[in-house]
Structures are given as structure tokens and as C-alpha cells.
């Protein structure tokens, strides 16, 4: 099956700093999502981005599908950005219908005031 690797596993930032999180995957995908898991465990959708670039406020993401990686950029980090960031990918398992997501192990981000 598809393998998903995220780096770095842990990241400590000072408030206001920028960061880049990386997700590598081992096969072609038709779904790639970035999530933020908050301290209460809720998975919050950040981006649906199987290819291309998207931006939402201080966050942006780029997926280069041909090279099998995705990057999540966080600019001007805030303490509320702390938590675990997951990359999850989905393949075309059902002849065109939707399939399950395979998650990386996440990047644990701590933003210090």
C-alpha cells in the first residue's frame, strides 16, 4: 500500500516564526489532505490539495504530484497553531470511487510565546 512519511516529527517555534512541513508519499494519489489536530483531538481540515497550490490566510500548501510530495507552510506562527499536523492521502482503489485515507505519523508543532 501507499506509504506516507512526514517530516520533521517534532518542531518547536518561537511565535512569529515561519515553518515548512513536508509530506512524502510512495504512489500516485487522487486525494491529499492536510489536517490540524487540536489539543482536544478534533481533526480540522486545512487543505484538500491532490495537486497545485492553495492559500488560506497564514497557511498555504503545495503538492507536486509528479514528484510525490506536499508542503505545508505556516507563516507568522501563533501559539494557537500548536498541535499535530497530519498529511493523509487516498488512492484510486475502487475503479473511480472514493477510498480511505492513509495518514502519516504527523508533525507535532509547539509554538512558544
Amino acid at each position, binding site marked *: 500500500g501507499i506509504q506516507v512519511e512526514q517530516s520533521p516529527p517534532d518542531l518547536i517555534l518561537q511565535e512569529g516564526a515561519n515553518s515548512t512541513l513536508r509530506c512524502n508519499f510512495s504512489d500516485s*494519489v*487522487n*486525494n491529499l*489532505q492536510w*489536517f490540524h489536530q487540536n489539543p*482536544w*483531538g*478534533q*481533526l480540522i*481540515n486545512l487543505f*484538500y490539495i*491532490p495537486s497545485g497550490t492553495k492559500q488560506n490566510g497564514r497557511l498555504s500548501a503545495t503538492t507536486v504530484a509528479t514528484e510525490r510530495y506536499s508542503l505545508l507552510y505556516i507563516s507568522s506562527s501563533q501559539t494557537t497553531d500548536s498541535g499535530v499536523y*497530519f498529511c*493523509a492521502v*487516498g488512492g*484510486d*482503489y*475502487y475503479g*473511480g*470511487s*472514493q*477510498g*480511505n*485515507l*492513509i*495518514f502519516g*505519523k*504527523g508533525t507535532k508543532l509547539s509554538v512558544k510565546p
Partner: protein
Amino acid sequence: GAGVSQSPSNKVTEKGKDVELRCDPISGHTALYWYRQSLGQGLEFLIYFQGNSAPDKSGLPSDRFSAERTGGSVSTLTIQRTQQEDSAVYLCASSPPGRRGETQYFGPGTRLLVL
């Protein structure tokens, strides 16, 4: 609109008892997924529903686990004869109909503790 809801939010049970976990997907979403998150295994897929049928049950860890979905809406995950290793957060997600690969929206999870 309302997001994915799950109940109960927390469940403590004794080893050997059966438990039922419920998921209410977003209205109109045809696909429904169950995942679980545990310390040792991370986030792992359990089962996928398209409508009321389950084309992929490959993630269910044993025959003690089963799930059903009725009316293309609510789903119930049942764990029989619970074991301590079943302790985890059980997450449900749903996604809208349409083309391949759609955003999956997650519920808040049910935290299961088996004593």
C-alpha cells in the same frame, strides 16, 4: 451546517463487554469512514461505506468488530467482547458524492477505554 457528530464522546467499559459507537454524517454525504487513533498505531482506517454497503472492510482488526449503516445516514460500529487493546479514539468521517477523491470531514471522536 452541522458537522459530523459522534456519540458517546467518552466510553469506559470492562473487558469482555460489548460497545456500540454511533456516527451521524453530514447530511447528503454518501461516503462514510471509520478510523481509530491509538498511541502505538497512529491513525488507521477501519471500514468504508458507500451508501449502505461496505465495499472495503479491510481495516477491521478482528471479527469482534462490525459496522452497519442504515438509510444511507447513521452508522454504528460495534465491538464485541472488548479487549484492553481496543482502547483508542474512534473517529468517523464523511464525504460528499461526486468525483474521485473528495474532502473527508471528521467528527470529534469517541474515546474508548477498556479496563
